[in-house]
C-alpha cells in the first residue's frame, strides 16, 4: 500500500526532474549544433531504421512529409535531434524522382537508358570525375570505398571485378533491379555519370 506521502514524493520527483532537465537544456541550447551531412545521414538511416524494419525508399515522401515521419521515428526509435537532421539531409537529398530530377536546372540531359556495356575506360579524368561524383552522392555513407565508409551496403573496392561492370552500371541506373527491398536511392544518374563512377570503382582494384 502506498502512502499519500509516497505518491507526493513521486510527483515531486517528476516535476523536479523535468525542471532539472529543462535547466540543462537551456545550457545546451547555447552550444549550437552541427547540420546533417548526406553521408552521415545515410549511415544513420541504415543503422538506426534498419534495426527494426527495412529502410523505406526516400522517394516515398516529400521533403516536408519526411520531417514529420522522422520526428515520429525520433519518438519511437530513440533517435536524437542531431540524428534526425542527418537522416533528413539524406532523405531530402535523394527523394527526387529521376524523371523530375531530369527537369531540374543543371540536370544532365543524357538518359541512363543509353548505358554503355563492356570494358571500363581507365581515363584518369574520367576516374577523377567518378571520384567526385561518388563523394557528391555520399556513396561512402553506406559502402566501404578505399577502406572507409558505412557497412549497410556491400563494400565497393572490388565490386567491379566481383560483379562485373555491367552489373554495376545497371545497379547505378536502377538500384532495385536485383533487390526489391534495396534502400539505395535512385540518384537519376546520366549514362556518362554512371560510366565515370564505374571507372572510379574499377580503378580501386584496377581491372575488370
Amino acid at each position: 500500500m502506498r502512502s499519500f506521502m509516497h505518491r507526493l514524493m513521486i510527483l515531486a520527483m517528476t516535476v523536479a526532474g523535468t525542471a532539472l532537465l529543462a535547466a540543462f537544456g537551456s545550457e545546451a541550447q547555447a552550444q549550437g549544433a552541427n547540420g546533417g551531412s548526406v553521408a552521415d545521414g545515410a549511415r544513420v538511416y541504415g543503422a538506426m531504421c534498419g534495426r527494426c524494419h527495412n529502410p523505406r525508399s526516400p522517394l516515398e515522401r516529400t521533403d516536408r512529409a519526411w520531417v514529420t515521419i522522422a520526428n515520429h521515428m525520433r519518438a519511437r526509435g530513440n533517435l536524437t535531434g542531431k540524428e534526425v537532421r542527418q537522416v533528413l539531409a539524406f532523405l531530402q537529398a535523394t527523394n527526387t524522382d529521376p524523371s523530375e530530377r531530369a527537369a531540374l536546372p543543371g540536370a544532365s540531359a543524357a538518359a541512363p537508358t543509353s548505358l554503355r556495356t563492356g570494358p571500363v575506360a581507365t581515363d584518369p579524368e574520367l576516374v577523377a570525375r567518378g571520384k567526385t561524383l561518388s563523394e557528391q552522392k555520399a556513396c561512402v555513407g553506406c559502402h566501404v570505398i578505399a577502406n572507409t565508409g558505412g557497412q549497410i551496403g556491400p563494400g565497393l573496392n572490388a565490386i567491379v571485378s566481383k560483379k562485373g561492370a555491367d552489373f554495376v552500371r545497371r545497379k547505378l541506373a536502377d538500384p532495385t533491379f536485383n533487390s526489391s527491398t534495396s534502400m539505395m536511392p535512385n540518384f537519376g544518374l546520366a549514362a556518362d555519370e554512371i560510366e565515370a563512377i564505374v571507372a572510379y570503382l574499377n580503378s580501386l582494384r584496377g581491372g575488370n
Partner: protein
Amino acid sequence: MVTVDSKRVFAIAIGMGLALATSTSAAAQDEPIPAGDRVIPTTQVVLSGYGTVGYGITTQGANENAFNAAINPIFLFQFQDRILFEAEFEFELEGGVTETGLEYAQLDVMVLDNLTLVGGKFLLPFGVFGERLHPTWINKFPTAPPMYGHHVAAFGAEPLLPILSDLGFMARAMLRPGPVHLTLNGYVTQGAAPEDPAAGVAELVFPGSSGDNNTDKLLGGRLDLAVPPHFEVNFSYMNSDYDVDNVLDLTGWNVAAEFRAANFEVRGEYLQTRQEIEVPSGFPTLRRHGFYAQAAYRFGAWESVFRWTQVFDSELDGVTQNRGAWQAGFGLDYWFSPSIAFMGGYEVNNELGPELDNDRFIFHIAYGF
C-alpha cells in the same frame, strides 16, 4: 509486497539517470530541424500506418478456417519542430464484428536534442516487441509471440502480458558515448488492473482508460544499450499495485537482445512477472515467465523465419499453478518492396496441459504505408 523504499530507489535512479544522460551528452545540442522551407511553419498532418489481409487454417485441434483483415492508420500532427501529436487506431475484423481500438494517442515534446517528453496514451517501453516490432509489416512472422498475445496470436497459455500501452507520462533521454547508443526511459502510468476483480487469481490488463481502479501509479523504466546496426540489449522493469485497495503488487521485468549481421538477424525477449495474490493466509506471489527467440535470414527478396516461444509453468509460492506451453513457428516471407510483404507461417502449438493443440497455417500480406 515490494516495499515503498525499493520503489523510491527505482524512481530516484530513473530520475537521476535521465538527468545525467541529459547533462553529460555530447549530443545535447538544440538546433531547429532543417532550415528554410524544411521547417514546418504551423501544423502539418501526415497519414501513415499499416494494413493486413490474411487467411488462417488449422491442421490440428480446433477447426478454424477464416480470412481476416485489419488496418491501423497512424495520424501524425506536427507543430513546428518540437511538438508532435501521434495516434494509432486499430480496426480489425474479429468473428463478424469490427473491433476498434486506440493503440496510442500521445503528445511528444522534443525538449532537447537528446530528451523527449511524452504524455498521453503511449506504448510502454517494456521489452521491445510491443513498442517497436508489433506492426504487422515489421514483425516478420504473421503472428505475435504468444507470450504477449495480440494480433491473431492464438496460444494455449494465457499471454504473460498484453502488448502494452497505458496512460501517463514518459521521459526518454539518449546518450552517444562513442559507438554505443544509450537510451534511458522512465515513465509513470495508470497501471494494471484485474480483468475480473472477482477471480481468485486475476489476469491483469492495462485498461488504458481515463479512470484508474486505484490510487497507485505504475513506475517503469528501460535501459537500452545498442551498437547499431549490429547489437542491442534492453533491460526493462515495472512495478505498481493493481488492486482497488493498493495492497497487491505487480512487478515485471524483461531482458531483450538483438544481433544482426548482413542478411541474418536473431532477437529474443525474456519476460517475468511477479503478482501478489490475496488468500486468507496472506499474499503469496504468482510467478510467471517465458521467452521468445527468433532468427531470420534474407536471401534476395525472400526471408526465412524461425521463432520459438516458451511459457514456463506458473508457480504460486513455488507450487505449480498452471502448466506452460511452447510454440514453434516456421515462416517464409516474400518482400515486394521494403514495406510490402507476403508472409506465410506454420505454427506448431503444444500446450503441456490437457487441452488440444492448435497447429495451423497462417498467411497474410502486410503493407506499411
